[in-house]
C-alpha cells in the first residue's frame, strides 16, 4: 500500500514523508482518581443522561508536565532506545502549567534527553498532540533526526456547573516517531483539515474555556472530523471495512460513535479505542490515549484510522499499519487498561481540592 500511497501523494492532499516513518514507542498515562458523573449531578443536577460515566482526575501532585513524563517513559520503554537519541521533545496541551516557559524542556530533562534537541509546546485546543505528531513525522521524514517525541496531555478545565464539567478530564499519551525499520506501527499517511471555526476557546487570563453549545457539534466537530477522515480514506482508496480499528477524538461518548457510524464503521472497530465513557475527555490526549488502547491489542497487519479534533478548528487523520514488533514490545510498559483499572473514586469536594477549585469569598 505504501507505494500506492506515495505515488498518489504526489498529486494528492496526503502528507507522506520522503523517509518512511513509524511509531517506535508509545505510552499512555491516566491518573488514578475518578469522579463519577452522578457525583457532579448530585451537586449541580443534570438534564437527563450523562455524556460519560466518569472521568479521570489529576492528583494534587500532578500536572501536564508530570503526566507527560510518565507517558514518555512508557514510550521509551517500548521504543527500546535511549532518551539521548531523541532530537525533539514536543508537548501539545491546552493546560500547560506555565503561560510562558515550555513544558517540553522540563519533560526532556526529566526523561534524560540530551541538550541537542528541539523542544517547544504546541497549542491547538484538543489537537495539539496530533499536530506535534505531524511535526515529528516531518522531522524524521525529512531526515533531520532519527527520533522525535510527541506528547498530547491535558488536565482539562471544565467550569463548575457547566456541561463541560462532566467530561473535562486528565490524561494523555506519548509517541516516539522514528524510521520504519524499527517501528511498531507504520505511519502510512496523514492529512489535516483546518478552518476558522470558533466553537470553543479560552482567552488569556480566563480560567475556564467557553463554548458555542450546539455550534460545537454540526459545524465544528462533525464537519471537521468528517472531512478529515473521509478525505484521507478517499485519497488512499480505503473503505471503513478495510480498517481493523478506528479512533476518533472523543469529547463525550456520543460524538465519536455518531461520526464513526456516518463514515461506515461498526461498533467493534471503535469500541477498543473509545475511552471517553470511562476516563472522560482528555482533550489533547483524547484520540492519542484511545490509540494506545488499540495498540495494546492490535495484530500484525491491522490497519488503524486515527482522527483527532481541535476546536478553532481542525482535524488530523492518520493511517497506521501494525508491524510484527508491536506484539513483542508492547509488554515493556503498563497497558492503558492497567491505568484504567488503577481506580480510586473521589467525591466532588475532593475533586475541587485536587483541581485547586476552592476559593472563598
Amino acid at each position, binding site marked *: 500500500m505504501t507505494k500506492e500511497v506515495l505515488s498518489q501523494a504526489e498529486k494528492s492532499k496526503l502528507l507522506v514523508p520522503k523517509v518512511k516513518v513509524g511509531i517506535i514507542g508509545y505510552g499512555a498515562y491516566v491518573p488514578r482518581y475518578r469522579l463519577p458523573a452522578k457525583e457532579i449531578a448530585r451537586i449541580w443536577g443534570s438534564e437527563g443522561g450523562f455524556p460519560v460515566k466518569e472521568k479521570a482526575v489529576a492528583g494534587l501532585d500532578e500536572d501536564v508536565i508530570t503526566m507527560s513524563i510518565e507517558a514518555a517513559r512508557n514510550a521509551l520503554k517500548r521504543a527500546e532506545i535511549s532518551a539521548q537519541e531523541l532530537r525533539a521533545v514536543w508537548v501539545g496541551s491546552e493546560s500547560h502549567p506555565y503561560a510562558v516557559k515550555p513544558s517540553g524542556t522540563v519533560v526532556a530533562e526529566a526523561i534524560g534527553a540530551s541538550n541537542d534537541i528541539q523542544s517547544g509546546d504546541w497549542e491547538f485546543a484538543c489537537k495539539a498532540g496530533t499536530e506535534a505528531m505531524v511535526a515529528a513525522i516531518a522531522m524524521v521524514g525529512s531526515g533531520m533526526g532519527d527520533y522525535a517525541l510527541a506528547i498530547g496531555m491535558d488536565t482539562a478545565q471544565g467550569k463548575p456547573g457547566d456541561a463541560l464539567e462532566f467530561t473535562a478530564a486528565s490524561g494523555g499519551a506519548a509517541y516516539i516517531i522514528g524510521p520504519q525499520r524499527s517501528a511498531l506501527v507504520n505511519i502510512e499517511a496523514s492529512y489535516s483539515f483546518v478552518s476558522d471555526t470558533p466553537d470553543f476557546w479560552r482567552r488569556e487570563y480566563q480560567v475556564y474555556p*467557553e463554548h*458555542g*453549545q*450546539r*455550534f460545537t457539534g*454540526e*459545524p465544528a466537530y462533525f464537519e471537521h472530523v468528517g472531512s478529515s477522515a473521509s478525505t484521507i480514506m478517499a485519497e488512499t482508496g480505503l473503505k471503513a471495512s478495510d480498517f481493523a480499528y478506528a479512533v476518533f477524538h472523543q469529547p463525550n461518548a456520543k460524538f465519536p460513535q455518531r461520526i464513526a457510524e456516518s463514515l461506515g464503521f461498526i461498533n467493534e472497530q471503535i469500541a477498543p479505542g473509545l475511552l471517553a465513557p470511562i476516563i472522560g475527555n482528555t482533550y489533547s490526549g483524547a484520540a492519542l490515549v484511545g490509540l494506545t488502547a488499540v495498540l495494546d491489542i492490535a495484530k500484525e497487519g491491522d490497519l488503524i484510522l486515527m482522527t483527532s479534533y481541535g476546536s478553532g478548528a481542525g482535524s488530523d487523520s492518520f493511517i497506521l499499519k501494525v508491524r510484527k514488533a508491536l506484539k513483542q514490545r508492547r509488554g515493556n510498559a503498563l497497558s492503558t487498561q492497567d491505568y484504567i483499572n488503577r481506580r480510586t473514586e473521589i467525591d466532588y469536594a475532593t475533586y475541587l481540592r485536587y483541581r485547586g477549585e476552592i476559593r472563598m469569598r
Partner: protein
Amino acid sequence: MRRTNDVFIIGIAQTEIGELWDLSLRELGSSALREAMADANGLEPEAVFVGNMLAANTSRQANLASLINEHAGLAGKAEGFTVEAAEASGGAALYAAWNAIRSGMIDVAAVVGVEKTTDVVGAGIESRLLSTGIDSDFEALEGLTLTGQASLLLQRYLFENQVPREALAGFPMIAHSNGVNNPKAMFRKAIDEKTYMKGIGDPGGFSTFDLAPNADGAAALILVRGDRIPKDLKHNAVRLASSCYITDRLAIHDHRDPLFFEAAAVSTQKALLKAGIELAMVDLFEYSDNTTLHAVLSLEAAGFALRGEGWKLAGEGTLALQGTLPVATMGGHKARGFTLGASGVCQVVEACLQLRGEAGANQIPNARIAMTQSLAATASAAATQILSI
C-alpha cells in the same frame, strides 16, 4: 367589492428556519425579500418595514432597513424602517406597512421579518437578551425571565382551572405533527404524550415541549393597494382584510388579570370589526404558541374558548388540521421554530400558503379566512391580522 385602498399580499417568502450558523442577518433578510419580490412578479416596494427584536444586541447591528434594502437591490430606491415590538415586531411591522398603504402615501410596501439568535449562545440569550422584552427595571432586574414568567403563570393556570397536567400535551403534539410536512420547519418529527410528559422537570412547571425553540430565519411579504395587483400574477392575491396592533401594560404585575391576554382580546375584536367578519368564520388561526401558556391564553382571549377552558380544545381535536379551528398549520412557533421578531411575518406567510392552496400535505380544504396573531412577551402587545381570499 375591491376598494382602492384595500390591501393585498401578492408576494410571500420564507427562508428555512433553524440554527442557521452560516447565514447572517443580511443574507436572511435580503434573500427573503428578493424571493418575495420575485413571487410578486418582480414588483419593487417603495417602502420596506423590517420587524426585528434582537439584532442590535445579538449581532450589534441596527439600521436594518438600509442593510437589507442594499442587499436586495433597493439601495437608493426604497424607504426603510425597523419596527420593534419584542416578539410582536413582525406583526407590528406588517401593521405599519398596512397603514402606509391605507393612508394613500405608498402603493407597494414590503414587510421583512428577520431574526438572528445564534450570533450569541449561552444562558445570556434568555437572561439578558430575551428579557429586554419584559420590564427591565421591575421584572428582568429581579431575575425574572420571559420563560420563568410564563412558567409561573402556567402553574397558576393549572391550579385555578384544575387542569390535568397531561391535557396540555395536545398543543405541542399538534404543532409537531403539522411541522412534519413543512420543509422549512426546524423540527419535522411528531411527538407523543409520553415524550411530552417525560420533558416535565419541576412538577407543575413547563415540559421542554411547552417551549418553542428560538430560531434564526426570515420571512417577507409584498403588499399592494388593490389597483396595483399585477394582471398576470400566477397565484391568488390574498386580501389583508385588517391589521390591528395594540399595546398593554409592560409588566405582568400591572396587568389587570395576568391570566387574561387583554391586548390579544382587544386587537382580535378590532381586527374582526375592521374586516367585517365574525370569529366563527375564521378557517384557521396562526397563533402565538411560543409557550403552551401563550397558546391556551390566546385561544381564550380571542374568544375561541371560555376563560379557563382553552386547554380543552387540543384534546378535543378542534385544533388539528381536520378540526374546526386548525392552528399552527405549518408547525407554529413550536415546530417551525420561534423566530421572535420575524415570527409574526412567518405566520402570515403560512396563512397565505393556506389561502392560496399551496400548503401541500397540510392544506386545509376550502380555507377562505385566516387569522394570525403575534404577541410581545406575555401579551404586552398584540398584532392581529385577518386575511381572506
